[in-house]
């Protein structure tokens, strides 16, 4: 007889061949019945052929049914095969012993064909359902693992967007700063940023995007990029906030938003200008120990409503002052009694703690919050930034030349003449000013000649910042998007007859400046040039 592989497999175990024949007779049409005349054979078949059901006699020589059942259940390969005891015994105690060993059911001998058929059918079906469930469960686990892996990758990418090259700004004696983000879930919506917008001004950002998970992380990435891009060419926190809010709000179908504290610190004068978009007010601890809250909120959360004009405030930091910015993950951290860490607790901690470095302020606060939370699960991202101002504020040394010109070539004269006047009496070598004049001539000529597609008047903004033995020049125009530094360099080895003049001006600029860069904003080109004022070759 050829086994039909579609039929469920039933293993019948009995030391009496006649009994096996009975089972075959009853189940043979619907099942592939395998027979074993003792426990040892039964275990072997069970392990190698994975039957869907085992009908097991109890009273057998050598190894009785109980022991067979026990061994089946102890072996992971056979543990899930349902076992039905077939026995002449009918005492309750025996049945109880069978169930204890993991049997699925009992059928009494002499076997009633109908009962055997129906119970076999039931348990084979149950086994199939169980198998299907386990398969589904394994599949779900695999999917879950894959999602987890992807979230971990997302977390790595996100964390890599944050400055973690501690200690931050080790070369600056004027201040020390430390920032840390502890994500509650794999990817988070908090972020912080720290960067110099020019050699004297440090921009600090602490922010919290609504929601958590992947959408918040994506919005975080966009927000962070917009803030750093805007801050580079804009010296006002209010203006940066206003412009970034407009960009975030414009195309925001998922209605996400971000709370932001953004400040620009002049590291020489200690002046701190800041704007707060619906964010937790930072704390300020003066050198004398007095703690205050920078309470002022200058506008709603960013990304929610277009055309909001944000405000800004300014304070002056003195030597030994500490600014502590954070996200609501700190104050809303919850312990097992459902109590919040709270603003009051934070302020008290800040007032009672003293003499720490920026890094220690952050770490001590992380410790304080995690001790408070105890065994409770972290509910939100925690971001903390501490800035300690370490110098006696100096006089403002900023030295700036600014001129706005119309888009007319003859206006170039006023730019270079103004620059020459600005440089007079300063320790700037004349060659440096000449080179910058050439750069202005080349770049402004390009903008005025090719940058505009209409005939309307336009303004071009030129700024030159002189500090730390460098001139940093920016040219901003609202012409067509154009990166002057993108083109190929000209071939300067050709003879008089073959020389083309195109591209030469930009080549001069690139060679003569120490740094050139270009950035495009929504409605503006910005070129930035840096040239050192000393040690010219």
């Amino acid at each position, binding site marked *: 007889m050829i086994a039909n592989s579609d039929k469920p497999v039933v293993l019948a175990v009995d030391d009496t061949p006649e009994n096996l024949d009975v089972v075959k007779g009853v189940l043979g049409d619907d099942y592939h019945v395998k027979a074993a005349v003792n426990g040892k054979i039964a275990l072997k078949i069970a392990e190698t052929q994975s039957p869907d059901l085992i009908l097991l006699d109890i009273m057998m020589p050598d190894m009785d049914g109980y022991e067979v059942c026990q061994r089946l259940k102890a072996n992971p390969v056979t543990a899930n095969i349902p076992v039905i005891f077939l026995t002449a015994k009918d005492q309750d105690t025996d049945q109880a012993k069978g169930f204890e060993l993991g049997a699925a059911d009992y059928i009494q001998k002499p076997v009633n064909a109908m009962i055997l058929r129906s119970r076999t059918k039931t348990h084979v079906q149950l086994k199939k359902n169980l198998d299907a469930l386990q398969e589904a469960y394994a599949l779900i686990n695999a999917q879950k693992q894959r999602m987890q892996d992807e979230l971990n990758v997302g977390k790595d990418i996100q964390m890599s967007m944050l400055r973690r090259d501690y200690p931050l700004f080790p070369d600056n004696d004027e201040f020390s700063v430390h920032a840390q983000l502890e994500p509650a879930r794999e990817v988070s919506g908090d972020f912080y940023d720290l960067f110099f917008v020019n050699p004297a001004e440090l921009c600090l950002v602490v922010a919290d995007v609504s929601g958590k998970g992947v959408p918040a992380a994506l919005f975080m990435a966009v927000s962070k990029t917009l803030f750093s891009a805007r801050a580079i060419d804009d010296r006002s926190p209010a203006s940066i906030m206003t412009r970034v809010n407009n960009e975030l709000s414009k195309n925001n179908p998922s209605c996400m938003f971000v709370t932001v504290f953004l400040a620009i610190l002049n590291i020489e004068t200690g002046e701190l200008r800041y704007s707060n978009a619906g964010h937790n007010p930072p704390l300020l601890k003066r050198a004398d120990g007095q703690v205050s809250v920078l309470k002022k909120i200058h506008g709603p959360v960013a990304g929610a409503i277009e055309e909001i004009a944000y405000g800004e405030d300014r304070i002056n930091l003195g030597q030994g002052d500490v600014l502590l910015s954070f996200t609501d993950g700190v104050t809303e951290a919850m312990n097992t009694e459902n109590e919040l860490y709270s603003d009051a607790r934070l302020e008290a901690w800040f007032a009672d703690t003293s003499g720490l470095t920026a890094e220690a302020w952050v770490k001590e606060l992380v410790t304080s919050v995690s001790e408070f939370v105890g065994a409770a699960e972290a509910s939100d991202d925690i971001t903390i930034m501490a800035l300690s101002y370490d110098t006696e504020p100096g006089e403002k040394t900023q030295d700036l030349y600014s001129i706005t010109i119309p888009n007319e*070539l003859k206006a170039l004269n006023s730019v*270079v003449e103004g620059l020459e006047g600005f440089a007079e009496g300063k320790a700037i070598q004349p*060659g440096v000013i000449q080179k910058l*004049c050439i750069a202005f001539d080349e770049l402004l*000529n390009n903008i005025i000649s090719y940058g505009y597609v209409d005939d309307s008047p336009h303004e071009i903004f030129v700024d030159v910042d002189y500090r730390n033995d460098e001139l940093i020049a920016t040219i901003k125009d609202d012409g067509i998007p154009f990166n002057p530094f993108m083109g190929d360099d000209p071939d300067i080895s050709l003879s008089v*007859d073959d020389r083309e003049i195109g591209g*030469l001006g930009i080549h001069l600029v690139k060679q*003569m400046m120490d740094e050139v860069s270009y950035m495009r904003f929504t409605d503006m080109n910005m070129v930035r040039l840096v040239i050192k004022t000393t040690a010219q070759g």
Partner: protein
Amino acid sequence: MEIIEREEGEVRVLSLVGRLDTNTTPDAEAQINSVLDSGANKLLINFENIEYVSSAGLRLLLATAKRLKGSAGELRISCLNETVQEVFDISGFASILTVLATENEALDAF
């Protein structure tokens, strides 16, 4: 733009004053062309009083050199300051034009 013009034998000497950039080049171009139109074929441009030259000025020098070459004439340039010398070096003009340190050397080179 101020240009002082004189003759040294058969050489026309043009001394440029100020800067040679977008705004001054058209003026310089007109004056150089009028000198060439008058039949001068040996031209010395003295840069002693030139602060700097931008690519607009280089363009004029290239056009002048091409025009003189076409009429078998000669162009010499003298007295570059450090910045102008660097512009000539970067642009490759130092090797395609004949540049001399002093006016006398330039006159002797014709």
